[in-house]
């Protein structure tokens, strides 16, 4: 296949950035999208040009490192799929593909397609955990958890922290990410003790980081590679309201 790529190039955070066009002649349908970038980078190196910086690691859709907007969609056209799992069989010979970094005020661009998502870490640090020290907790089976509850919690915990939800949202809101963590922990009996405080602290930190407000656009759910449900947002809103109104929880 022949593919034309229009890729965002930006030397560093200060650079203004621009699109550059690259043509590739030998793309095969079995290649992954990132392998196509490997091939392009090898060509650039042969020409002694600077290869395109893009982030990736597991290439299996689980680490959450890859982060590209492909033809206007975070992680590209395929539902429930990260950029690294996208294969070229999804595209046609002669296609032009536009590739940009995730864009959001809270995710500054570091270089080309690489952005800084450390805001997500700080949100987790603000309360996305259960406060137990390493030690001698009770036997695991002394606390039965209904299968459905464990599964609902797991579905929320499947979030890979990629940030596509933020990139997809016109307000650059992080509500899907935050609500997934809150659901993961608050649904479980172990997480109930700190449920209210968790919801409040994480929402507060999200605002501090400069993420926008949620106005129910639902683009986040559509682009989330792990198909995290917006029901989690509703759950977070309930938790937050009940904790904000008439509660003495200290944050």
């Amino acid at each position, binding site marked *: 296949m022949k593919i034309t790529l229009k890729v965002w190039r930006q030397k560093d955070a200060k650079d203004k950035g621009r699109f550059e066009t690259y043509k590739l002649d030998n793309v095969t349908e079995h290649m992954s999208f990132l392998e196509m970038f490997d091939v392009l980078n090898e060509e650039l190196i042969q020409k*002694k040009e600077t290869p395109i910086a893009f982030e990736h690691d597991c*290439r299996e859709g689980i680490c959450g490192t890859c982060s590209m907007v492909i033809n206007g969609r975070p992680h590209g056209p395929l539902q429930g799929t990260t950029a690294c799992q996208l294969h070229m069989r999804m595209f046609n010979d002669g296609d032009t593909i536009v590739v940009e970094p995730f864009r959001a005020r809270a995710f500054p661009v570091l270089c080309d397609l690489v952005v800084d*998502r450390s805001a997500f870490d700080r949100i987790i640090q603000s309360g996305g955990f259960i406060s137990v020290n390493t030690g001698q907790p009770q036997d695991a089976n002394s606390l*039965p958890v209904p299968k459905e509850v464990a599964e609902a919690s797991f579905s929320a915990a499947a979030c890979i922290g990629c940030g596509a939800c933020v990139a997809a949202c016109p307000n650059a809101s992080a509500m899907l990410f935050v609500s997934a963590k809150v659901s993961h922990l608050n649904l479980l009996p172990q997480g109930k003790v700190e449920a209210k405080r968790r919801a409040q602290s994480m929402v507060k930190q999200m605002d501090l980081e400069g993420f926008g407000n949620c106005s129910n656009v639902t683009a986040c759910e559509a682009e989330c590679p792990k198909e995290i449900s917006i029901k989690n947002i509703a759950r977070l809103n309930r938790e937050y309201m009940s904790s904000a109104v008439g509660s003495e929880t200290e944050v």
Partner: protein
Amino acid sequence: MKLDGKIPAGALAEKWTKYRSSMPLVAPHNKLRLDVIVVGTGLAGASAAASLGELGYNVKCFTFHDSPRRAHSIAAQGGINAAKNYRNDGDSVHRLFYDTIKGGDYRAREANVHRLAEVSGSIIDQCVAQGVPFAREYGGLLDTRSFGGTQVQRTFYAKGQTGQQLLIGAYQALSRQISLGKVQMYNRHEMLDLVMVDGKARGIIARNLVTGKLERFSAHAVVLATGGYGNVFYLSTNAMTCNVTAAWRTVRRGALMANPCFTQIHPTCIPVSGDYQSKLTLMSESLRNDGRVWAPKKKEDAQAIREGRKKGKDIPEEDRDYFLERKYPAFGNLVPRDVASRASKAMCDAGHGVAPTGLAVFMDFAAAIERYGRSRASAQGIHNPDKDTITALGEKVIDEKYDNLFAMYEKITGENAKKTPMKIYPAVHYTMGGLWVDYNLQTNIPGLFATGECNFSDHGANRLGASALMQGLADGYFVLPYTIGTFLAGEISTPRISTDLPEFAAAESETRARLLGFLSVNGKQSVESFHRRLGRIMWEYCGMARNAEGLTKARKMVQDLQAEFQSDLFVPGTLDEFNPELEKAARVADFMELGELMIVDALNRNESCGGHFRTEYQTEEGEAMRDDEGYAYVAAWEYGGMGKEPVLHREDLIFETVKPTSRSYK
């Protein structure tokens, strides 16, 4: 140098308990004065950093990733072992210990492995308390399944994302300590050297990967939890950035590398499809609970499949060779990885392979789908269900158990493995070798500790499935936080280490010179192309089957490649900027040095054991032939200097409880 494993005296089952209650302690007010560097935030590093912070130490934690949560542990799929015996199927600490020692082909230390089995149960308790959503049964209790090399069901799991869920648990514990100010987290910082002061590990040189600046960090002790080196083969199931640099740089400073040739080839990975391929994808061992591995009995059928004239499902039952069930009836499809990998390779070598390359066999779920379908139909009160109902119900059960694995397979290959058998082939997956450590997880350098996959300690010559996650968390939550006290108790009056010491300045300037060296070659070939070539040499001659002739040849090839690297490498950009090519260059340079040492180690070990299969040493049936007289030892290698031979130090393995016998899974 005399290697002392520092194994406590006493009966095996009591060593750890007794030792723990008698080892030196560091009082809480002294912990506040001691700094510890932890490099790595995978299961081993995140759990250690969090636990050390909880204890009161001042922790500085490093990862080259953009977030601690990205560590390669996140990709582990199938599960984690623990001797809980929840199923009442006869499991016990002793059995887990025994399975691990036997699975490792009697090349691991009894005392370490026993301790691992002892703490395994606490790991599950700890993780549940942290909110890890393990799979559960309808009664609300934890579910388990089987993994290879065992006859009990002791593997706890969270669908096919167990590593992700465990790592998120550890990451959350780490995040909590960061928020409490007990851990200072340095993301996007890559350790490039170890700093030693008066013979002790006292700090690191790290490169800030965003600015490119070299920075100095000091501490009273340094813990490496930097993962395995499977990527020396270029193609492996490891994440793209996994590398040996942190560990190798300490070897350059005098740490010993133990059993580097012990690598694990995993039998069930998606076969290679083309030259551009960047990595291989694992299909979790848990699938062998339900998947039956086979190849066509007739070579004509295999050829027809390779040429696309036939499909797997066209081959009638009687023409299929379920070779694992045939050769190993007692364990069947669940034989250990090394055994399964070699059996698959043998089938392909004999002309029964099924992918266009000839390098694949089938893993088939049809029987399981039917079995589950019938059972679910009967549970739902459907009598005489038709075939479609059975299939639909059976496929649903498969989805519940392995959901993301089948989806992943389909994304990569474009095929639905519930409808047509999966194609699989062995691939590099894990490295049992690693930094030599004693019972305290301390290397031979005082103050330098190694945990998780980057040490050599628990898996001998072959690791059993679901035991790496167990080891990483055992080391980080339940072993290192205690054993590090044996060293730090002697440091309570050592003031904070200054980074202005000449040792720091020297290490920094050596690192700078090394990096500038890569930039100044200005040749023609990319780092990636060298890495691929190194990988091909390693796979061909130091992979699933090795022999003296090939290894000798390979050593020369690696040396030549190194010379070419030094004269024809091209790395764009500069030192003081975000420069992924420069990062890779430093890693590949270290992989080459390690690769050569792996070859030396494989040549030295004139026997076959576990993942190390020397074709000269095999039985008539093609099984590995160990030599306990000659090689029941840990081969710990000291770096000899550029162009000099490495020096071998042996630690004899003494078996007091189990008697090494020829490993049989028949």
